[in-house]
């Protein structure tokens, strides 16, 4: 570890060469400050500055181009009177519940199965995490084909002999939102499994020894001892999956295109559609801002927790 040190000694006395009066000597801290400029600019301008800018646009009556004629909260009034927006928000709730719930349940079950000590563990893990490397667009296109009512799963199962089998959710306005959860869980369940598995591996083996001595059945150990111990992992998984749900745009576009009609629309798609295609910049900006507020409401406990952990971690 200390090997590079002599090398450093030879090459790094630029401070001495340039040393004039000690006061004006260039300090490495200043270099560090300079090195932070690009990232700081991006953070201040492109993150926070642009959020404010979007908020300002949402207070105007901008349509195709930003027009800075302020109309107060009119766009928000229009937004909340917009039926498509409410469909999208309702879909966000349905999709969020199913997707996060499905990822947590199936991810945890897979992690427990793998944690029981199986051969070829690496192979199973590789398989379960494979969809993660693919884009939401690829996922959406694959599942659109699998769920194709004419040639996909429905026909394939009927061909096997179950002629009454029905699985045409992707073309049914009352069911299309559920197809998003299916494709989403398929893609993200591996990540949840990996996080839960890491948590399970951190559990003190003595707990297992003790419970075996006491003769407690395995499922009860998981339910009453291990699961409560993993509550921070559950929390992390919940936050990560929520972040994915609220940004979900690609998957809807590729899988259902928001349809039939707007039956599977999500807020992220509503916003992009209104900003890019519908010349409703002000309304789109208002939608974006509401979306941001939703994200903040869900994420802030997590950020708070992370920073607190960091602060207490530095104590010792």
């Amino acid at each position, binding site marked *: 570890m200390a090997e590079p040190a002599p090398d450093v*000694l030879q090459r790094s006395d630029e401070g001495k060469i340039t040393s004039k009066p000690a006061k004006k000597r260039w300090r490495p801290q200043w*270099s560090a400050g300079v090195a932070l400029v690009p990232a700081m600019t991006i953070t201040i301008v492109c993150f926070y500055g*642009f959020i404010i800018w979007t908020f300002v646009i949402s207070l105007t009556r901008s349509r195709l181009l930003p027009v800075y004629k302020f109309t107060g909260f009119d766009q928000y009034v229009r937004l909340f009177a917009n039926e498509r927006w409410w469909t999208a928000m309702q879909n966000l709730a349905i999709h969020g519940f199913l997707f996060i719930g499905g990822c947590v349940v199936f991810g945890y079950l897979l992690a427990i199965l793998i944690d029981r000590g199986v051969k070829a563990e690496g192979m199973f893990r590789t398989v379960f995490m*494979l969809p993660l490397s693919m884009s*939401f667009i*690829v996922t959406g296109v694959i599942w659109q084909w*699998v769920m194709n009512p004419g040639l996909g799963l429905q026909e394939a199962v009927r061909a096997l002999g179950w002629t009454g089998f029905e699985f045409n959710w992707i073309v049914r306005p009352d069911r299309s939102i559920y197809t998003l959860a299916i494709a989403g869980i398929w893609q993200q369940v591996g990540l949840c499994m990996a996080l839960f598995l890491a948590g399970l591996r951190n559990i003190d083996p003595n707990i297992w020894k003790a419970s075996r001595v006491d003769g407690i059945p395995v499922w009860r150990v998981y339910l009453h001892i291990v699961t409560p111990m993993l509550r921070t992992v559950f929390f992390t998984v919940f936050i990560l999956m929520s972040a994915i749900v609220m940004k979900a745009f690609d998957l809807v576009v590729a899988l259902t295109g928001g349809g039939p009609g707007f039956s599977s629309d999500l807020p992220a798609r509503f916003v992009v559609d209104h900003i890019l295609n519908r010349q409703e910049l002000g309304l789109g900006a208002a939608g974006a801002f509401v979306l941001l507020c939703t994200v903040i409401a869900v994420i802030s406990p997590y950020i708070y927790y992370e920073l607190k952990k960091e602060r207490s971690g530095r104590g010792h």
Partner: protein
Amino acid sequence: MRYNRLALYGLLGLAAIMIMAPVFIMISTSVKSMDEIRDGSIFTLPADPSFAAWSKAWLGDCSQTLGEKCGGLSSSFMTSVQIVIPALILSVGLGAVTGYSLAVWKMKGANLMFAALLVGMFIPPQVTLYPLIIMIRELGIFGSIPGLILVHVIWGVAFTTMMFRNFFKTVPQDLLKAARIDGAGFWALFWHVMLPLSLPILGVAMILQFTYIWNDFLLGLTFGGRSGQPMTVALNNLVGSQFGEKEYNVDMAATMLTALPTLAVYLLSGRLFVRGIAAGAVKG
């Protein structure tokens, strides 16, 4: 006990089959003919595998040309490569330097800035999309590859900074002190001590950034225009186009082609991918 083991492997096998089935269906559909697709089911194996659909997806169909392009994915593949490589190097490089400055050189406000950056990772891209469009347009690089590279660097820097900053925080203080006493300045410490130490995390950041940038759709759709169309956007257009009869084998071959680079990186990198994906999952 033996039945338990059997059930265990049974359940895991079933889950593995359910995860792999759509991938299998994609591959097998892509090597079937359209007649076979119409007559058979998605589960049947291809009777006479052919890569005709692959070549059509890659090169396009030049008998129905619209303009000089044949509509294949090969040109957007090149676009994606031209976007990914510079964006990858710039975003990882900037993240390494920023993470190093924040972690090692204790400056006032470093933690505040890190927190601000961390929050930035959660911001849905839709919220800053329009101002970003204006900025890129004012810079004169809208609808071009340089514009997309810049946007990817902007969106990637929070994640890469977080990876490096958290790693550099774990470097023993004694090592840093020793290097400082030996007279190492800012860049010397970075190049000769910190960067060599961070090779594993560098690998993780590269793999993850590659995957994110390659898989991006929203930024490519918004900022790419016609000349900077990455592969995901081209795939979505191809599958969504309503001209003529739908060729599912070509769609699936195109999907496979789009998925292959990240799939290959995943299978080759193994554990590094797994290590990074958990850290970077917050990024959409």
